[in-house]
Structure formats: structure tokens, C-alpha cells
């Protein structure tokens, strides 16, 4: 099968063109470095031609391990005899930067005898500002076809297809080798000259961008707009996704109600009700959040605002080894770690991305809320201070939220200062793309793809672990008593571990089951204490805990433990997928457990001094 390679600088519109040519949905965003994997698809117009989309790179001279992988793959692909053409996409509005990369690509292709077609994207933007690109003259200077097009509107794409069609089944002469031995320094100078001779004249585009930047980067208006946009993003995860999440739970509940009574066998009925529907619900409930967040983040990326937000947040986050681009993933993590981890893909520096992965699980996610609510209601007095302005319980909730965020920053600060540099860092040289009006269809398609990726990749792991934990809790007594199940047995085994925190085996079991999802802690305690529906109405469970002889220090220790421990199978599964490193996730899981345990023990001992 004939193959065609698509390559271009980050933010040149490459993914959008790939989607237009193949009909597949690659992630599209107006933010540098968004294409992470190599995408493959067949051309819609020429189904026997395969299009390979390479990660966006600024140069064929890689400066990070990730870039080196992309360049190496590209060089190897050039040796493939089936590769007929290399499509090099450039941004016509920023020609000089694009042309330096283009010249490098042409030089490499000449060395491998491959033909290049330069696709000058964003011609619609030039048209709308009455600017022009002299494609014919540029083509003559490069000895390579230059086709102006708009990946967004589709203008000029037919010409690309026609050119590719002409080359099919024809023995192609190797390209004229005029750059083979040209060093990078000369290419840079050539790019500069070509851009000035044939590129759009004037700076109307930059002036428009600068006017908007004056507002969005201004100390006052920039700060206000940043706050409002982040508030919108946060609301989207917490509030807007909630009805859809409720709907998913409702549908699954109704489906279980309809199916379960039809099953005669008790074991099969319990398995279907708790493991099957419970397991599906455990990952399906996150889908609306992931969809909504991906949509909003896509909107910010496509519009060009994301790069500005990264700039605004960069300085304070740099103190903790992070980058401005870490802010949105971390903010997303306050609602749920899963979309936050996905959002970290936009961080181009592998080292900063790794540090962001480490910070996200410590953000106070919404699954911690029921645990915090239960423990605060049980152990913190409900009185107020400062004339009724400040409630102790509210203060405790704020404190534990703040504690989680602080832990996240301290961990990354510590790791960034002490760890060996296994991952390449990149300088904060951030291209600020032009502001653009995002297209609805790519945003929806991208959100749908991300949600589908979550269901197909992480869903299987979450489902398997859910079924396994159900199995441990159900046997050998067929679900009649959780305390005497294998899970209860495990609870007794881990009891000595939690005894120094003043916790008995029942809390050990609840901590074990909360690995499925932190909020399961509440329901498990309710089951063990024989309180029905504790996850819906916590009051009887709170009263039961208060009437027990459990020390306040144990309650506070549990709060701290849950603020730090990586007690979430979904987060673990997604971290392993996205970081492509099981060992990293294992280290994080163990490290955060030890950190959580040590902090909880310290709190318990400290509380003992005051009681």
C-alpha cells in the first residue's frame, strides 16, 4: 500500500488536516505540541493510500528524548519504499519559523530520495486580512510543489488529493538534490530570506493578536479574565457534568432493577447486581466529566487562550518545579484526577509532565468529599467562632482541601530538587498562537474520542479490579457477612498496620475497599456497622462513630491519610496508561501510602498530646 507522511511544526494545523483527509478524529488544538502519538489513517479520497501523521516538532534536531523518538521514527519511515510523498505542513501566517523546519525536511527527504509537497496552511486567515503568499515563486525557490490550503475550511485540499493521485502507480524520479549538504545554519538564513521575499507583508495579524493580549495579559483585566475562565472550567467539571453523571447512575440503576430480578440463581444475581453493574458504573460515571472537561479544555486550546493561561501561572508554579501548563491539569484534578491526568498531555516538557502527574492525585478530588464530610461531622465540633462568621467544620474542610494542594506542591518541589534528571526538561519558550474561533465539530469529536479512550483503555482495568474486590467480599459466605469474608480476613491481617492509628480491622476493610473509589469507604463502614444506605444519609453512621470509643486523633489521622494516599484504582489505571510506566505508578502508590501513613501517625500522636 502507498504511504504518505504528514509532518509539520506544532500548532501548524496538522491534526486538523489529518482529520479532514482521513475522516478520523485526531486530537486538534491550537496549542503547541498536542499530537503525542503517531496517527495512521486511510485517505478518504484515495482509500488505498495510508496517511501517517507524525508528532509535531519544531525541528529535526531533537532536544528532548520525546522529540528524538519522533525524529527517529520519521527518519526510519523515509527508508520505507512504500512512502511515496512527504507532506510538510507550514503555517503561512508565520512563515519564517515554518520554513526553517521545511528546509530541514526537504534536505532529509532528498537524502532518502523522497518527494516533498509543502502545504501552506491557514490561507483563509491570510485571505481575510487581504494578505498573500507567493506560492508559485516559493515553489520555484524550493524546487518543491507548494500548495496553499486551509485545513479548517477545506479550501485547496482537493489540489493536494489531485497531486497525490497523479503520483500513484507512476515511477517517480528522485527529487533534485540541492540541499543535501547544507548545514542548519545556512538553512536558517535561507528560511529568513525566503519568508521575507515570498511571505505575507505587514504585521496586521500580529497587531490583532497584540491588542487581545493587552487585555488578556494585563495585570488587572488579565487576572480577572483568568479567574472567570478558570471558574467556568471548574464549574463545568463540578456542576455541569453532575446531571449527566446522575443520569448515568440512574440508567444503570434502572437497568439493574430490570435485569437482576429476572435472574434465579442467587450467586448470579448478586454478581450481576453488585459486580457487573457496580463495575460498569465505577468507570462509566466518569465519562460525562471527561467529556465536558475535554470539550472546555479543547475550547481554550483552540481559541489560543490556553497558552496565555500557562504564561500567567508559570512563575508561582515554577517554584515547585512545575510549569504554567501544569495549572489546568491540577485544577481539573480538584474535581477528578482522571480528566486532570488526561489534560497533562498538553505539557511538552516530559519532566514537568511527570511532576504534574505526581501533583494531580494529591489535589482534593470530589471522591474525597464524602469521606471528609463523614469524618469532619463525626470528629469536629459543629460550633462557630468569630461571632458566628467561621464554623469549625467549614474551617476543617477548607483546611483539609488546602492541605492536599499544599502536599501536591511540596512533593513536586521536593522531587524536582532532589531527583536525578531521568526525564528531559524543556525551556519555557512558549509560542503564543493567534486567537482563533474554535470549530464546534472538532471539539465535540475530540471530547467523544477522549471519553471513548477512557472507557476502552482504563474501563477494563477498573472493571476487573471492581469484580476482584467484590469476589473477595462475597466469598466464602456468599455475601452474608462482610466481616467474615476474605476481605474481612484481609482486614484482620492489616489490622496491626492500622492499630498504631487507633483503627481496628473494620476501618482496615473500609480502607481496602476504598481503593475502588474513595467514597466507597463510607458505604463499607455503613455495611460493617449494619447501617443501611449510609452513603445516602450519613447521620446514623456519624452518630454510631461518635458513640464508639474511637479517638478524635484517629478521625484526624484518617482525614490526613485520605488526603494523601493514592486510594483510587481509576487514577492508578490512567496514570499507568498515560505515563506508560508501571514502575512509576507503583512507586507513586507505595510512596504516597508511606507518606500518608507517616503523616496520619504524626497527627494521631500529636492529637494524643492534647487529649
Amino acid at each position, binding site marked *: 500500500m502507498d504511504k504518505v507522511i504528514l509532518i509539520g511544526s506544532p500548532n501548524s494545523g496538522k491534526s486538523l488536516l489529518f482529520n479532514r483527509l482521513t475522516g478520523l478524529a485526531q486530537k486538534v488544538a491550537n496549542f503547541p505540541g498536542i499530537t503525542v502519538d503517531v496517527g495512521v489513517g486511510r485517505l478518504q479520497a484515495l482509500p488505498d493510500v495510508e496517511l501517517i501523521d507524525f508528532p509535531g516538532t519544531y*525541528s529535526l534536531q531533537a532536544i528532548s528524548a520525546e522529540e528524538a523518538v519522533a525524529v527517529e521514527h520519521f527518519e526510519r519511515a523515509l527508508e520505507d519504499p512504500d512512502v511515496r510523498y512527504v507532506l510538510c505542513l507550514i503555517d503561512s501566517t508565520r512563515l519564517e519559523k515554518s520554513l526553517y523546519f521545511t528546509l530541514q525536511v526537504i534536505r532529509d527527504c532528498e537524502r532518502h530520495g523522497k518527494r516533498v509537497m509543502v502545504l501552506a496552511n491557514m490561507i483563509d486567515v491570510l485571505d481575510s486580512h487581504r494578505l498573500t503568499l507567493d506560492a508559485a515563486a516559493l515553489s520555484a525557490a524550493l524546487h518543491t510543489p507548494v500548495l496553499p490550503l486551509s485545513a479548517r475550511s477545506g479550501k485547496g485540499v482537493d489540489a493536494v488529493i489531485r497531486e497525490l493521485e497523479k503520483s500513484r502507480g507512476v515511477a517517480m524520479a528522485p527529487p533534485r538534490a540541492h540541499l543535501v549538504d547544507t548545514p542548519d545554519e545556512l538553512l*536558517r538564513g535561507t528560511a529568513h530570506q525566503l519568508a521575507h521575499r515570498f511571505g505575507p507583508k505587514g504585521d496586521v495579524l500580529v497587531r490583532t493578536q*497584540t491588542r487581545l493580549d493587552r487585555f488578556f495579559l494585563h*495585570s488587572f483585566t488579565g487576572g480577572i479574565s483568568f479567574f472567570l475562565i478558570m471558574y467556568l472550567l471548574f464549574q463545568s467539571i463540578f456542576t455541569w457534568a453532575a446531571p449527566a453523571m446522575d443520569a448515568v447512575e440512574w440508567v444503570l440503576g434502572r437497568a439493574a432493577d430490570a435485569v437482576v430480578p429476572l435472574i434465579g440463581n442467587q450467586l448470579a444475581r448478586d454478581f450481576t447486581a453488585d459486580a457487573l453493574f457496580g463495575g460498569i458504573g465505577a468507570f462509566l460515571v466518569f465519562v460525562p466529566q471527561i467529556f465536558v472537561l475535554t470539550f472546555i479544555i479543547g475550547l481554550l486550546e483552540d481559541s489560543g487562550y490556553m497558552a496565555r493561561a500557562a*504564561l*500567567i501561572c508559570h*512563575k508561582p508554579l515554577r517554584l515547585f518545579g512545575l510549569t504554567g501548563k501544569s495549572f489546568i491539569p491540577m485544577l481539573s484534578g480538584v474535581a477528578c484526577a482522571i480528566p486532570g491526568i488526561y489534560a497533562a498531555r498538553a505539557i511538552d516538557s516530559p519532566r514537568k509532565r511527570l511532576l504534574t502527574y505526581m501533583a494531580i492525585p494529591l489535589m482534593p478530588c470530589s471522591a474525597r468529599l464524602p469521606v471528609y464530610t463523614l469524618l469532619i461531622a463525626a470528629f469536629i465540633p459543629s460550633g462557630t467562632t468569630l461571632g458566628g462568621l467561621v464554623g469549625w467544620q467549614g474551617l476543617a474542610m477548607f483546611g483539609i482541601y488546602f492541605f492536599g494542594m499544599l502536599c501536591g506542591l511540596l512533593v513536586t518541589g521536593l522531587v524536582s530538587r532532589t531527583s536525578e534528571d531521568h526525564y528531559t526538561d524543556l525551556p*519555557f*519558550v512558549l509560542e503564543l498562537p493567534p486567537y482563533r474561533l474554535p470549530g464546534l465539530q472538532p471539539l465535540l469529536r475530540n471530547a467523544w474520542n477522549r471519553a471513548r479512550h477512557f472507557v476502552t483503555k482504563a474501563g477494563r482495568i477498573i472493571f476487573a479490579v471492581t469484580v476482584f474486590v467484590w469476589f473477595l467480599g462475597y466469598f466464602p459466605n456468599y455475601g452474608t457477612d462482610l466481616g467474615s469474608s476474605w476481605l474481612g480476613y484481609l482486614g484482620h491481617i492489616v489490622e496491626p498496620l492500622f492499630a498504631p492509628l487507633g483503627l481496628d480491622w473494620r476501618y482496615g476493610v473500609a480502607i481496602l475497599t476504598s481503593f475502588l473509589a474513595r467514597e466507597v469507604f463510607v458505604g463499607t463502614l455503613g455495611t460493617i456497622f449494619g447501617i443501611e444506605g449510609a452513603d445516602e444519609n450519613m447521620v446514623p453512621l456519624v452518630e454510631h462513630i461518635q458513640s464508639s470509643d474511637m479517638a478524635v486523633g484517629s478521625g484526624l489521622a484518617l482525614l490526613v491519610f485520605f488526603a494523601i494516599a493514592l486510594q483510587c484504582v481509576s487514577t492508578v489505571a490512567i496514570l499507568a496508561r498515560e505515563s506508560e510506566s508501571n514502575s512509576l505508578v507503583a512507586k507513586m502508590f507505595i510512596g504516597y501510602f508511606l507518606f500518608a501513613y507517616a503523616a496520619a501517625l504524626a497527627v494521631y500522636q500529636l492529637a494524643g498530646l492534647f487529649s
Partner: protein
Amino acid sequence: MLSDTLWSLRAGDRCQILDYDEALAEKYRVRLMEFGFHPGEVVTCLHSPSFGAPKVYRVSNTIFSLDDEVATHVRVRLWSPDG
């Protein structure tokens, strides 16, 4: 003629890049060159935000943001059209 660094520019200042200092890592130097920050190029500082946040520069027809870790290592000469 004043010799200074890219980081010292204020909003509205224009400069011509002279060179990079020794302390700037090679990979950073390469990336800056690819973005157009090469010796002889004229750069305009568009925004210089408060509290040491990254500054915004225009080089050719592209806008970049650089933080002090990078910009302090780029030596420049303040530029005026009359030389």
C-alpha cells in the same frame, strides 16, 4: 548603544540580538535559534508583566513568551531605526 539582556527589556522596547552567554545550555540555544532568536534578529518586547512572570516578545511575525531562566542569557543591544 547599550548592551543588555532580553529579560531587561520593558514593554515597547526593541533590541537586536547579539549572542547567547555561556551559561545557556546548548539545547536551549538550539531551540531559541529555531524560533528565530538568532544573532542579528530584531526583537520587540510586547508585554512585561508584574511579579517576574514570563515576558512576551515578538520575533519576525511570531509571538513567544520566555521566562527569566532563558531570557537572561540572551545578550541584546537596544535598537533604534536610525542605528
